[in-house]
């Protein structure tokens, strides 16, 4: 108790007079995880921003989990070490819900029609569409707390020499090609995926779940990922994975990508950060042989969204400068420049630009996929559900079977957790 009181007392002290002359602009400190998808932003756009506005920037990076730790600590303790947080879109509910992000609407940010709607929607809290988690006012108006930064999602990467008549349009086609042409003895695998329990395997499975007509949550947060359609989709997925490398159950994004780039897989759904590497001879053995498309279809056709979002820290010391960056970066002219330099934009005009499309031949596929994009469920408790589901999926993968048992087990545990956290859970 005494400690809490001490903390409160100290934090109420006014910040030591940090007066700044109007000519001297504060420096924007970005905090982020590392990813090749951010390279163009860091190396091309930030210097341009500094030149154009005279505002210095500093980019701080950590590994993915390390960054989450730091960002949470920073938000919780209101330390103000960072001005802009780069967030995985599935962190937005947590950060916005806990008050670690500044309200962009209140700061005077205005959106326009050029934003790709599915991308922009992810920045709102409470979510614009879908269920609201308990504890939120059901009548509260969604406010903008973060903006898209990089439109990352799961895209279909496929070998154009194997799928010689174009991308597979349906999942059945993918399975058929795997059946016909796989040859594990020569390390030729029909499909590769992530299998590590938790976020990786859930993201890989997510597309199939929805494509077969399944869902994660039904009405009132009822857990429905063990519905008959869901079971069917998992059985299909397990079948497909019998044509994947032996160790796929422990594959994460990096091994998935490496298998494809080494020329050992026919196709995979991967994050767009890999796009630029397919044609780099120091990184890929299949230069020119990889093409991109929207993930295949069964009943539905979706792409799993995993956007990088940018939010201004609630405790940011340089909010005005941070806002200026967001305004500058999200303006249509800058987005156009970004796309032409090889980055993945989030504005429609930038996606449709001919020059940008020439530079990045995957841009068209990303745009189409973005319009069909579905994000992770918008609740701050998603990580726990993801962990439960992911553990059972991983087990099913190792067994190469037991779809119904594992999905049922996951559903039971998830429902128990949700109920204890105050969800109606059907």
């Amino acid at each position: 108790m005494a400690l809490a009181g001490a903390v409160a007392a100290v934090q109420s002290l006014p910040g030591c007079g940090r007066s700044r002359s109007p000519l001297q602009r504060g420096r924007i400190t970005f905090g982020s995880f590392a990813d090749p998808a951010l390279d163009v932003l860091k190396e091309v756009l930030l210097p341009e921003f500094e030149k154009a506005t005279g505002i210095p920037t500093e980019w701080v990076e950590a590994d993915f989990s390390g960054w989450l730790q730091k960002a949470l600590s920073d938000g919780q303790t209101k330390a103000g070490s960072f001005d802009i947080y780069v967030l995985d879109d599935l962190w937005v509910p947590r950060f916005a819900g806990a008050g670690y992000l500044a309200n962009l609407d209140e700061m005077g940010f205005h959106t326009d029609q050029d934003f790709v709607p599915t991308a922009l929607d992810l920045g709102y809290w409470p979510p614009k569409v879908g269920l609201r988690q308990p504890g939120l006012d059901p009548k509260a108006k969604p406010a903008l707390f973060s903006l898209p930064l990089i439109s990352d999602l799961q895209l279909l990467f496929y070998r154009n020499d194997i799928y010689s008549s174009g991308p597979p349009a349906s999942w059945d086609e993918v399975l058929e090609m795997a059946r016909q042409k796989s040859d594990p003895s020569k390390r030729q695998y029909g499909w590769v995926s992530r299998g590590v329990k938790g976020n990786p395997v859930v993201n890989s499975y997510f597309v199939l779940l929805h494509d077969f007509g399944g869902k994660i949550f039904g009405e009132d947060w009822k857990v429905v990922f063990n519905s008959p359609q869901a079971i069917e989709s998992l059985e299909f997925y397990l079948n497909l994975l019998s044509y994947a490398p032996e160790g796929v159950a422990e594959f994460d994004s990096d091994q998935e990508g490496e298998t494809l780039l080494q020329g050992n897989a026919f196709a995979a759904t991967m994050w767009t950060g890999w796009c630029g590497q397919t044609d780099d001879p120091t990184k890929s053995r299949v230069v020119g042989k990889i093409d991109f498309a929207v993930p295949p279809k069964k009943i539905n056709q979706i792409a799993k969204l995993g956007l990088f979002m940018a939010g201004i820290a609630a405790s940011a010391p340089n909010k005005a400068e941070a806002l200026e960056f967001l305004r500058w970066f999200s303006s249509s002219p800058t987005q156009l420049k970004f796309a032409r330099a090889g980055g993945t934009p989030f504005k429609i005009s930038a996606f449709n630009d001919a020059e940008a499309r020439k530079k990045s031949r995957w841009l068209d596929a990303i745009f189409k996929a973005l319009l069909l994009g579905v994000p992770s469920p918008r609740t701050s408790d998603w990580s726990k559900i993801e962990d439960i589901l992911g553990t059972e999926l991983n087990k099913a993968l190792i067994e190469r079977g037991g779809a119904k048992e594992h999905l049922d087990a996951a559903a039971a545990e998830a429902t128990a957790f949700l109920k204890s956290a105050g969800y109606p859970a059907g």
Partner: protein
Amino acid sequence: MLPLLLIAPTAIFALAVTVLPLGYTVLASLQEFPLVRPPAFVGLQNYQNLLHDANFRGSLGTTLLFTVSATGIEFVLGLVLALLLKEEFSLQGIIRSTLIIPMVIAPVVVGIIWRLLYNTDAGLFSFVIQSLFGTNLSVLSSTTLALPALILVDIWEWTPFMFLILLAGIQSLPQEPFEAARVDGASPWNIFLHLTLPMLRPVIAVALLIRALDAFTVFDQVFVLTQGGPGTATEVATLMIYKTAFRFSQFGYAASMAIFLLVLVAGFSAGVTRAFKERSV
């Protein structure tokens, strides 16, 4: 007065860095932090939930298995190495320095390199197994082999530590008892069993305790190599605490896990220390 002054800085440091933060954590373990609502005081609720948490119990079991296996094998190997190298010989400096390299490389890097070594298609380990036995082995994705694989990494990394401590211990033993035993015609094996080992007891205790403590709180390698998978085969306690705190944002519950673990470990250390203290006199 002087003795107190000399100890004071040390004591202040220790207090500030262990006792004070621990107090905060204990406080946190009595609260709940549901992100979209302000923190709430829940008393011993977290601890009650802990006792019913099968996942946590499982992680404790895995951690125990890991600790006992790793420490045990490292001890045996370290002892063998120490016995091998206890005599002076020409290249001993370089050889000893070489043997301790695994200890010196950053744990994160150790994890990454072994992840590469264990990779089914591109890993040297798999390659060697395949050349020797014909079948390919996908170690990290096997529920039975994943934990042994992690234990192997730990053994590789920390046997040098055991080796150094045991070597020092052996080299510091007085020579007379051994000479007397040899003169009496005792066999090397008997000397080892009835002379060397008992005299080494305090050193062995220290070595085992320190290594066991570190193994119990293992984190980096597991995180990088398996993330606790496949299934829950390598889900160690520290990983569980980490996920609970930073992935699920259940800070209160994670704090209670940490305190529980601390009490467990402290009790174990105290017990071991006392046991060895009594016997060695």
